[in-house]
């Protein structure tokens, strides 16, 4: 999280420094030749691809047959498509403030690897393995400060950053069931006992957008952003950190008024 904040601060400084350097660098272009920002309201909507995965694992001690065993769960939360939309308003010179929304959902494959104590003997656990297909949903609301850099009348570069409010819904495997029969030397996974859990956390978003307007108000754009957070979820072993979001690239429609 610290590194993300640093990145955001660095980008802000870089922008300010660039603006300052621009003021010191002669010759200054004539105001009439410089692309102007003639719009105050900006919208974007599109599809992002979340590049990274947010796999996580948990190892818990379970009590079965008067002996401790182990339950390991490994969640594969891969990348995938996300819907992203934002709106912003120009408040001063090139500075705009806005709100964004990113919705991400994916199937999560959970691998269950358990050691189940034998009912008759100590230290003779049976290995039980299985899989559970669950879901992950992420809803991120971004508060964004944007710096708009018009490259031409048709092209606009935007750099943005700010805090993000994440809500993460994840199917968590809390327990499992298995079948067994005499002499109980083996056990077979039958099903996972899972529950959907929803937790929230504050994270950060930072990124850039390049838009090309083929008409005065409508254009297309591409963007890259990092928006992520770490939520605390209740896992069989106790509470654990689960990462959400990540690096996302994509594009979509751009509107300005």
């Amino acid at each position, binding site marked *: 999280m610290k590194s993300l904040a640093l990145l955001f601060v660095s980008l802000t400084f870089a922008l300010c420094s660039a603006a300052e350097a621009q003021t010191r660098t002669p010759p200054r272009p004539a105001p009439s030749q410089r692309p102007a920002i003639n719009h105050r309201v900006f919208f974007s909507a599109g599809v992002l691809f979340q590049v990274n995965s947010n796999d996580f694992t948990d190892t818990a001690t379970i009590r079965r047959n008067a002996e401790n065993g182990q339950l390991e769960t490994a969640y594969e939360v891969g990348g995938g498509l996300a819907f992203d939309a934002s709106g912003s308003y120009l408040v001063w010179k090139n500075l705009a403030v806005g709100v964004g929304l990113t919705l991400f959902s994916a199937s999560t494959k959970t691998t269950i690897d358990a050691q189940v104590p034998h*009912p*008759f003997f100590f230290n003779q656990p049976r290995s039980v393995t299985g899989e559970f297909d669950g879901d992950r949903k992420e809803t991120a609301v971004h508060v964004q400060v944007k710096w708009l850099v018009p490259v031409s009348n048709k092209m606009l570069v935007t750099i943005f950053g700010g805090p993000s409010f994440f809500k993460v819904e994840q199917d968590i495997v809390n327990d499992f069931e298995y079948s067994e029969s005499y002499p109980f030397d083996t056990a077979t996974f039958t099903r996972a006992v899972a*529950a959907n859990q929803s937790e929230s956390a504050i994270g950060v978003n930072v990124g850039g957008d390049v838009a090309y307007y083929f008409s005065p108000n409508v254009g297309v754009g591409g963007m890259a952003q990092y928006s992520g957070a770490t939520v605390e979820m209740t896992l069989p072993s106790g509470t654990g950190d689960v990462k959400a979001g990540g690096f996302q690239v994509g594009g979509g429609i751009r509107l300005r008024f």
Partner: protein
Amino acid sequence: MKRVMAMVLAASALLISLDVGSAQQAPTLRFNATGNDLRVWDQFVTAQERAGALRVAQVVQDPSVPSRTVERLQQYYQGVPVWAAEVVRDSDRGVPVSIFGDLSAQADIDTQPGMTVEAATQRLLARGASGAVLLRPVTLVVLRQESGEPRLAYTSVVANTGQTFRVFIDARSGAELLRYSSIRKQAAIGTGRGVIGDTKKMSVRLQGGVYLADDPLRPPVLLTFDMRNNLIRALNVVFSGAPLFVSDLASDTDNNWTDVSAVDAHAQVGWTYDYYFKRHGRRGLDNRDRPLISLINAVSQQGAVTLPPELFDFAVNAFWCDDCGPGAIGVMFFGNGVPNGLIPGLNINPLAGSLDIVAHELTHGVTSATSDLLPTNEPGALNEAFSDMMGTSAEFFFQPVGAGIGQADYLIGEDSFRAVGGGLSGIRSLSNPIAFGDPDHYSLRFTGPEDDGGVHTNSTIPSHAFYLAIEGGRNRVSGITVQGVGAANREQIEKSFYRAFVFLLPASANFSTARAATIQAARDLYGTSSAAAQAITQAWTAVGVN
């Protein structure tokens, strides 16, 4: 249904055992037919079966009484099962012995549900929390409510995190009618300290808040009864067939068992069953899961001090009696030993504490069900020897190899019979029989009448051959060296002797017959010139049996 009612009323007029529920709206028909009324009730059940009001749900052969067949018949009303309305008919070779029933005598409801199975599925799922699943198919039933009013209901088992329960909903309104937990608490795994201080798991049953030494997980009935230091009662049970009750079972209130005899008898009888199942594919005493009944605590250690000599064996011995116990069910008996210091140089702890003793006694039951070797002279010695061989084999199957307490070795009973002051623990040795004064060669066999012709004494001649066939070595008397199969291949010798003693030997076999049978068994299993066949041949020759 009207016919059912007519028959029910007719039957109820005839039989005293009929117990029609007293409430007007609760016309339940209960009957316990075990006497003269059996024939009438059998006719009633048969008629209902023909009419389709009773349908066979299950037929099982009673494992404890092999000639018995138990039928469970489910009641139906207009093709819909009436929940928990059943008749159980126990027959001996087709002749009814008892009939117990609990039926709905009047349903009179419309059996057309007001919702589809799909709709019912959603309603049932809604009874659980988010993510709930149904573990059983959704079934339409007639549910008898506590008021007696029958209701058409859908039912299934709903499972979600932390709970599993059966729930019934009204098949028209969807309202919940009844639910109860599907989690049965009867089976439980307890722990306890045994005679040598080790901790063992115990497969027990929870009933009425008390844990009972009744193993619900292994296939046979496996019960350990606590005679609570009442020797007279123990003798009545063993020799007069006095009945045993649930209240006689060894018990514990917190499932952390402290009675060392109960822990070891219950756990190690189970282990011995496991040994036979895993090593030899055998299902217990008779290979048909005959009940395994153990009796412990007939005499306390302190009580042994004042026992008359003729009863002292009930303190310091263990035995299997094939024809003993209620209904000649067969029982194993384990003495509790005597207080330390009573016998100079030897502490005798509860005999159930030795796995080889427990397996020895259970093996006598196996022998009774198979070769049934005569209990005297050479057949008797073979009988005892086979019990020692299997007792030792069970030790090597479950315990780490070593000479310490709770370790696998070729001593018999060393975990119960503890030498004090440097002597040798145990009562016999398969590796060095002479250490206990027992013969290690046929030329040294006991020929007197005592001990039923030396059945225990002379057992060490074949059991020493068993040892030599596994471990190899030189016989002290003959000087013949045996090339054993090695400890890693002990399974070959165990299986060869098991095959010979269980399948091949006649009841009156002598040592020479045992030699031929065990060699033949090894040839059958591993080939004529196999290492096992050669080792067994050499071993018998080394102990002087040809």
